[in-house]
């Protein structure tokens, strides 16, 4: 990438109609200045955020990298505000070959009174016919409900809720009304892929049916990520979920019925320092134990046999980082993951 060029408009006490007009005019202006700036859009992202924390959200959006939304509408909620102020910027990043990539950003300052009907402000500002993702990282459930009238996708991060069971119920509330992209679920994607790959060879596949213990290690603030991973295992392996009990340490444990025998499940909180999962251990009734834990260069894997022999190796992969997670969420908004809903249902049965 090289130079970035912006066309900016702002107004106080404005209307959605004026904001939309400004968007159109800025697009014409940018296109006139840069003929290579041809809009080709795939997605709207509408975020409702605390004004106080909007800088942090802006920083996260800047780090999403190549999976950017085409048009981002950020509604900054400010206590006591009764009128709309807005800033519109149409920016182009020049890339190779004379092409320019367009980022359209609309920031609207709104008050709490606007939230129950926030869709009436946002609807004129999104690109018609494109899928719209609604994201409300600081709460404001009434705004998210209102946005669902015209949004097809809800972006959540279930680890944001203090209580795991509440987080899962909140996600379930949206599942029937929209496609849910849950960043807590996406944090488990590499783990699910690695587990699926590890047990793919026929000689190992049978071990899945002999599992007797599963332990998931997660950041202390991310039990939801662990529950969703267990929910996925429960759904895929036909376990009957039953509620895990929480110990004073924060660990959760319990037993579920599998087709052949009971499986003991444990969620073990540790101080990872970043949201998500840290590791997992699976044991079979035959005494085989497989562990995978985050480490340099990927997941450090250990397989122990009943006789005590061990095999250690690295399952290669670099961390995507938290910026990568949000970008992946935006990319997933274009896809549809049929596994989330059944995993969520099973996770609710465990929580």
């Amino acid at each position: 990438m090289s130079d970035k060029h912006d066309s900016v408009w702002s107004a106080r006490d404005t209307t959605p109609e004026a904001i939309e007009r400004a968007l159109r005019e800025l697009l014409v202006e940018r296109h006139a200045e840069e003929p290579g700036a041809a809009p080709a859009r795939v997605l709207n992202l509408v975020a409702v955020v605390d004004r106080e924390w909007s800088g942090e959200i802006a920083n996260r959006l800047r780090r999403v990298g190549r999976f950017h939304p085409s048009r981002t509408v950020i509604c900054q909620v400010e206590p006591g505000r009764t009128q709309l102020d807005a800033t519109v910027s149409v920016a182009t990043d020049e890339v190779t070959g004379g092409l320019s990539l367009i980022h359209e950003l609309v920031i609207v300052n709104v008050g709490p009174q606007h939230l129950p009907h926030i869709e009436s402000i946002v609807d004129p500002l999104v690109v018609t016919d494109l899928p719209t993702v609604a994201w409300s990282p600081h709460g404001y459930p009434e705004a998210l409900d209102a946005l669902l009238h015209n949004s097809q996708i809800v972006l959540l991060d279930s680890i944001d809720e203090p209580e795991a069971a509440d987080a899962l119920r909140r996600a379930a509330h949206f599942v029937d009304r929209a496609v849910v992209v849950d960043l807590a679920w996406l944090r488990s994607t590499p783990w699910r892929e690695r587990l699926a790959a590890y047990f793919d060879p026929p000689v190992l596949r049978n071990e899945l049916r002999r599992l007797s213990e599963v332990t998931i290690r997660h950041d202390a603030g991310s039990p939801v990520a662990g529950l969703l991973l267990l929910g996925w295992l429960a759904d895929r392996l036909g376990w009957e979920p039953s509620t895990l009990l929480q110990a004073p340490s924060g660990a959760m444990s319990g037993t579920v019925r599998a087709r052949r025998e009971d499986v003991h499940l444990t969620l073990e909180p540790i101080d990872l320092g970043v949201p998500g999962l840290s590791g997992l251990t699976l044991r079979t009734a035959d005494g085989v134990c497989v562990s995978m834990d985050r480490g340099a260069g990927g997941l450090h894997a250990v397989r122990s046999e009943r006789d005590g022999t061990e095999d250690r190796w690295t399952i290669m992969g670099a961390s995507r980082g938290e910026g990568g997670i949000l970008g992946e969420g935006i990319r997933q908004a274009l896809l549809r993951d049929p596994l989330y809903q059944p995993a969520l249902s099973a996770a609710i049965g465990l929580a």
Partner: protein
Amino acid sequence: MSAADAEPPSNPLDKALERLPVHPTTLVIFGASGDLAKRKLLPALYNLAHEGALPVRFNLVGMSRGELRDDVFREECAEAIRRFSRRAVDDAVLAALLVDARYVQGNFDDEQAYATLGSILDDYDATAGQPMARAFYLSTAPGFFPVIVGELGRAGLATHEGAKVRCVIEKPFGTSLAEAKDLNRDVLAVFGEEQVFRIDHYLGKETVQNLLAFRFANGMFEPLWNRNFIDNVQITASEDIGIGTRAGYYDGAGALRDLVQNHMLQLLTLLCMEPPVSFTADDVRDEKVKVLHAIAAPTSDEVPEMSVRAQYGTGVSAGEDALGYMDEDGVPADSNTETYAAMRLSVRNWRWSGVPFYLRTGKRLARKVTEIAITFKPVPHMAFDEDGGSAGVLPNVLVMTLQPNEGVSLSLGAKIPGTRMRIRPVMMEFLYGTAFLSQSPEAYERLILDAMRGDATLFTRNDEVEEQWRVCDPIVSTWAQTPGPLPTYESGSQGPAEADAILVDEDRWRAI
């Protein structure tokens, strides 16, 4: 084995995963110290490792003639990866990729080297506690392909109980129909066709796969995709650079073998094929082969009227004086190798009968571009008066650009603002990069992963490669028997004037 221990019908954990599991694999690169390995294969492996896309257990073995210790081989691999990787290297991932990499020194016909290789592969299996799949990647001079395949067979390495063995073969797959048949015979004497993955890296490009998406995911164009609406098709793969230091390879190959026989015919088949029943390897390749089968190979008498070859002469390219081909280092004084090839082909089937397909490729042309231009038939009746009104009405042209900027453009007739009804063409452009901010994976990343997974959709099948040669062979042999010197074209130009002679009716070459 009891009923309870019977192999489950499928992996219950892989359902709907975006990245499907790949069996634990050991990849053996023959020609590991070569240019392709260093520039493409090793960086592709690193990027797969970085993304977590390699199998959960993966080992790398290099085999070449040079004498190297394992640690020196690892250092050379690391250096190549740092130099040519498309993304910044994570040292820990790189170390994990190479920590157990091994090197086998030996001539490719050295029986002992294959015994050594076999014991290394067995060691990896023992460490993993399971038979690992084996992928042999032949990245050597083509003359070694049958030698290596034969030795692998003799060493008992073409099969492996409990895991798959696959053989990836780089291009060129023969330099004539006879050679391609011989090579297929040698390869298929050792491996089953389902084990063989013939690389045409064009098929690994996202842009080429987008051709299939464009055709089969958009209903609006398919009704027009036939002889009733399409007037002619031009496929262009032009480069603005000369042969550089590649005279040794290029003078033995020429433009037709370098690009037309493989890449350009792939584009033609993807453009012309019927919708496959499914996107499985054989369904897709069956349809591609049918297209090739419908192209009549020219007789030697027909070759001069349907094809043109030429060499670039001196000129000005990108503002700099440019050498002619015959003045390039390493080019023989009597070279008759073409740096430009153009031809007109006909696909003789219900859909395409009568539509001319023009293919052209060349070095040191005006611009670097790979595109497919589809010119539609003109409107049947011109309603606008000819007094300036209809003069600008031109047939619609749909251009699918593969490089440098992947996208689709469609020319439309539009009214020029003013009081008169004056029509001129305007371009409606869609550029993939503006929609997806794409940082596409390298073609080799996709292809290596597909080969390890056993998905041959993006590889050339034995009958496909022979059909490609069946079409091109008469042109190659007629040219070989026709004395030079060849026509020349100015460096930095649109190509030789002689190329106009193969156009029919009112057709004109598009400006490069």
